[in-house]
């Protein structure tokens, strides 16, 4: 299991002639087994925060630590699920899911039982020989999730993974993720702009403001687990939702 901590992290991007401050002085700590959601409007730098934790991008200032170690490159101990599934289109579902273990030279005998279990878990049995182009958006995301889970990462980084799915599929995927997380209890950093999604999934919702991205508040979600879609109809859920709506709207207006 894993902890994440960002200390006074800023990130600037070179945009044509000038430099754009995307993330400004972010301090953030995520505990072992915590499910944290970063909530914010598009362009607020929340994906940049995730990319820095993943090791895809380096902070301009400040430090990004995972398990007290500075992050300097991406790696299988920090599994990333992307918004567009980012599957390898030339590989079948099975080859996509086994890419990680094959790359690291794990013998097939060692990963095969685990892969079969995972395919069952995400409901992809019978689709092993299909190519990504033959799958629906939701199924692609299941493959994206399975190929990361097979590495048994201590930290799961999810960048609006269900953002491009239709409402129905999104609910199914959210419940799937809840059941996966309740079973394995990884530390999760989940980026979203969907308030209900953040509340349904997370232990903590971190609200970010836009341009430059700063952390506005951090709200603990005290809804009981296990959670299901029913959770979204509880009074406490709606109370929290109202609170978050206020915070996000206030920011959108300024």
């Amino acid at each position, binding site marked *: 299991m894993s902890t994440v901590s960002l200390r006074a992290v800023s990130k600037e991007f070179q945009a044509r002639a000038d430099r754009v401050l995307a993330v400004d002085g972010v301090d953030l700590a995520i505990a072992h087994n915590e499910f944290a959601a970063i909530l914010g409007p598009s362009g607020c730098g929340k994906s940049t925060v995730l990319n820095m934790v*993943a090791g895809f991008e380096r902070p301009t200032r400040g430090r990004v630590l995972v398990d007290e170690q500075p992050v300097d490159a991406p790696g299988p101990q920090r599994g*990333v699920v992307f918004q567009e599934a980012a599957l390898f*289109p030339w590989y079948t579902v099975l080859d996509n899911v086994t890419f990680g273990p094959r*790359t690291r030279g794990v013998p097939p005998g060692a990963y095969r039982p685990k892969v079969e279990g995972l395919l069952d878990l995400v409901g992809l049995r019978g689709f092993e020989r299909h190519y990504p*182009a033959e799958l629906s958006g939701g199924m692609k995301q299941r493959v994206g999730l399975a*190929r*990361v889970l097979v590495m048994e990462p201590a930290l799961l980084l999810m960048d609006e993974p269900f953002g491009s799915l239709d409402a129905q599929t999104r609910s199914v995927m959210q419940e799937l993720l809840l059941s996966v997380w309740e079973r394995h209890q990884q530390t999760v950093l989940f980026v979203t702009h969907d308030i209900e999604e953040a509340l349904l999934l997370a232990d903590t919702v971190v609200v970010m403001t836009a341009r430059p991205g700063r952390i506005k508040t951090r709200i603990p979600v005290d809804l009981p687990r296990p959670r299901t879609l029913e959770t979204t109809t509880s009074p406490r859920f709606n109370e929290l939702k109202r609170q978050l709506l206020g915070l996000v709207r206030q920011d959108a207006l300024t």
Partner: protein
Amino acid sequence: MSARRAPWAVALPLVLLLLWDVAVSRHWVAEGIIPAPAQVARSWYTWIFGASTASLSPYSGTWVANVLHSARRVLLGFVLAAAVGIPLGVFIGWNRLVARVVDPSIQLLRPVPITAWLPFAIAVFGIYDASALFLIGLGAFYPIVVNTTHGVRDTNLLLLRAARMLGAGPATVLTKVVFRSALPSIFTGLRLGIGVAWTAVIVAEMIAVKSGLGYVLWDAYYVGRMDICVATMFSVGLLGLASDQILLRVSRLVLRWRALEAHA
């Protein structure tokens, strides 16, 4: 080509053949310069199968041998071009330093037509196969290297990140992601390359060697056998089409995942 589309594909060639025949029989073209289609067909037949009676034609029955000469040169030159062009294109596309060092020279040399290299090739390699292979290889090399470079540079950043995140090192990223993702572009380069190779083989054989379809074409022109010239043009066209179709089939087989994408 499917059976359903075939009638449409042959309609225009038939009309053109008819027009050609009418033009010759009505003397729209100067007599004795352009042979009639039937004359070309007869000469072509003799060229392929030989004549039953003792023939005076030096071309009789030599078609297969000449086709093999040309095809062998095209294949060798093309394989040479691919063997150099694909790896070089991958490195130019992948490594900024290699691109800075190599790419300007390629862009500088690329506009020099293959025909302009002829005297150089003959001076260096002489009237031998090596001359022809140099010209064919060089001609096919440019489209292959340029398209490979382009394909590599086009690799989706997310796929590179995904591979690194899954634990892939530079070698795995290059072979399992970058190369795979560049393959459609590489096949485009190969198809353009084989087309240039057929152009180059004719040019090379006309001047730099003494065998093959290009040699026959030039020789027939000198002795006034326009029927053989036209038959040679058809032969080259058909061989070019056949080699392109072979590459197309191979690419469809290798890029099966892409066909599915197009239908999605």
